[in-house]
């Protein structure tokens, strides 16, 4: 319920910004590109999925271990905003990718389970009016993200000089909200850079399923489903900000 309340608040904030007049400074639009380091929290279904894979391999005698699981990865975000008197609002598109590995190797071969997750997020953004002076401005920004995730699961067993590999591609659709703060520093008129930090909280996510067939879900354990249900903490650098 709280996720809907939060989402509703951001939508109201966004609606309020649209009905206000333009920025009185003269610039009407803002464009920026950010590079972030994304840290993943949570991801309970993914943890269970990894444990399930470990268990399956353990049952046949291979002590597979998780050697990598959702490491912090860089992400990119592009945002276009329109200035309003009290808010800025616009849209954003971001790219991110993460994944993990379960692995076992000895003198005779190896067993590897890799999963790669790539996320495309389409966002609506509302950002509060800046606080500060003409050099440094602080913003509070909220986003509603429609996240399209693709998970590629690759299972490879290599014995001596022969190997077999299975590859499974799945996809999921989720939406999340991401409240955050920004620090924007003006270089000269119309050009700025700054910092950004936000927490991407998933509100709803589909289970990963085969492309085009939502019913063909990946299940493991006792009917558990794998979902992109983690929380992302994005700590980023606003590389370029253009106001015009």
């Amino acid at each position, binding site marked *: 319920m709280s996720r809907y309340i939060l989402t509703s608040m951001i939508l109201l904030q966004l609606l309020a910004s649209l009905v206000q007049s333009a920025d009185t400074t003269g610039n009407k639009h803002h464009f920026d590109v950010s*590079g972030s380091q994304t840290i993943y929290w949570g991801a309970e279904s993914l943890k269970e999925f990894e444990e399930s894979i470990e268990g399956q391999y353990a049952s046949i*005698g291979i002590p*597979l271990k998780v050697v990598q699981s959702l490491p912090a990865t860089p992400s990119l975000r592009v945002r276009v905003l329109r200035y309003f008197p009290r808010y800025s609002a616009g849209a954003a598109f971001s790219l991110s990718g993460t994944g993990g590995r379960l692995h076992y190797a000895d003198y005779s071969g190896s067993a590897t389970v890799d999963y*790669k*997750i790539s996320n495309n997020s389409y966002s609506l953004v509302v950002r509060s009016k800046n606080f500060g002076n003409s050099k440094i401005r602080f913003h509070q920004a909220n986003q509603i993200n429609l996240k399209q995730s693709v998970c590629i699961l690759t299972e490879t067993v290599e014995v001596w000089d022969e190997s077999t590999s299975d590859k499974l591609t799945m996809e999921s659709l989720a939406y999340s909200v991401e409240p955050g703060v920004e620090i924007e520093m003006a270089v000269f008129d119309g050009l700025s850079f700054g910092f950004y930090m936000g927490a991407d909280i998933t509100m709803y996510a589909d289970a990963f399923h085969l492309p085009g067939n939502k019913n063909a879900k990946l299940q493991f354990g006792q009917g558990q489903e794998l979902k992109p249900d983690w929380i992302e903490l994005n700590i980023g650098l606003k590389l370029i900000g*253009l106001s015009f």
Partner: protein
Amino acid sequence: MRFTGCLLSLLVLLSCETNFEPSGSNFVEIDTTAQPIVTVNLSMQDTLGLLILDDQVSLSYELEIGNLKLYEVHVTLDDAIIFTGHSRTDNFYYDPNDYSEGNHTLRIEFITSSGRGSIADISGAEGYQFYQEYGILNIRNSFPEPLSILNAAPDQGGLVVSWEKYTRLNFESYSLSSSLPLYTTYLPDDTSFLDPHYIGGEVEYTLRVVTPDGSPYSERFSYQSPPPEMIRFEQLDENSVQVYWSKCRFPTNFGKYIIGAANQSAQYLTNIDDTTATLDQIPFGDYTYVNLSTHPKSQQDTHEYIQGGENLVWVGTNTGHRAQSAVYVPENENLYLTSRWVVGRYDGDSLNLEASYELPTYGTIEISPDGSHIVARENYSISRLDSETLQPVFEPDLAALIGWAPHVRAIAVANDNLLFFAAQPATGPGDLEIFALNTEQGILLDRISKTSPENYVEAMECTAEGDYVVHDYEFLHFDGSQFTRHHNYYNAEFVTFNPEGDYFVYAFLGEPAKLINMATMVSDMTLNSTQAFSPSFDPVTGYLGFYSNQGERYKIYNVETQSTIDHFSATLPTNGAFTLFDNRVISSEGFLRDVNE
């Protein structure tokens, strides 16, 4: 300008790589030096330390491989897989008929996991291949072949039989059978056998190979070694002989000799070098059988022995001339011996044959007591023989003389060419008649019909001078020209006239022999209440000789003094006779001995 910058910035940044590539490893060190220990148990028939396969044999195996995972088991015979399994224990049937007979190698081979726990081990890409071979395997799918006895030869004082070794497997034993004596012995693994029983003679050995699939016989192998046999004998005295025989050639097996004459106690000689023995109480008159048998040491108490052949000994002189009757002529020392249809004239001293004659057909030859008148009788004719040459010199025409063709049944020959004969018509029924004939002149002197009962129609006797003749029960007097009936009680079969013709011996069956006076035709004397056989009078001494079955002795008796001159052990040959002449006795078998007065 700013819009263009925005687009350029966007394109540059979007081109930055954001794909994620998993990384990291988990390498585990595994000990590869440990070697697993496995054992294999294969259960099959095992004979002579080798594995044997037979028809429809069940083979079972058991593998102890610990925690290793068994992938596959192969049992091969040479290079051919005869069984494939996947269990640690299993059994299967095998038919060796599918393979050629001979030696093969049985191998059990199995593949297991390595047990190291490596991913190759788990995936089955790594493992151990174990195998165990079971030496030479003989497949036997044909009937066992018979062996051949190679040799039998004297050795170690016995007879050693040897044969080739049976090289095929499934052998159980040899079985050697002997025919002398008949016995069978089972030999586990020998290829030679010292026969403990063989002491000589002809023996046949048969060897069998005993196997579970049958026991074929070898060809018979014959061996012969002369057994101990009587070589010769010497007469020691009137009734004993010394016999000699060959020594047994198999001292190890020798047990004893047993020698004895018929109806006498046997002698047992256990020394192999004792090859002579004295046999007493050998009767005169016929051959005496001597039994020589040799017994093996192993079977002395049984009846198994080797017979040394039938050996004949005798006492007296073996003249070699059969003599059913003898006529001795002292004047010229001629001895005529007749035996049925053969007659011979011999020198009385040397017994050399000087003349002989044999009738061409069945008949009899009779000789007068003085030897001057010899007549041969055939069924339908009569011939007079020359007393020197013994060749026929005259054959009277009997049909012309008596009026019909006769069937001559009996003759009696007297001195002076006087012949009596009994005949009946050769064709058709007719009564017997008795005729008197002068064979020199061919004149029929008289004839008389036979009126007595017929019993021994071929028996006819007459006195030397021909004054009495008896045929069957017809006792006649003949005065030289005419018959008169004299008596009809005594049968010619049992009548023997003395040379003078004044009495005769009547030796009727089952009764004591009697001397009958011709004048009175009654008995003057009975011969010691004994039954007499083959009585004869010595034409020289007048003694009466006869064989008494009471004590089986031959006795020479002086009728005048009624005393016994001599007597000795004797045996009367079957259907034979003794004849006493010139103080000598000759038997129908040709044995001659002197009378001891």
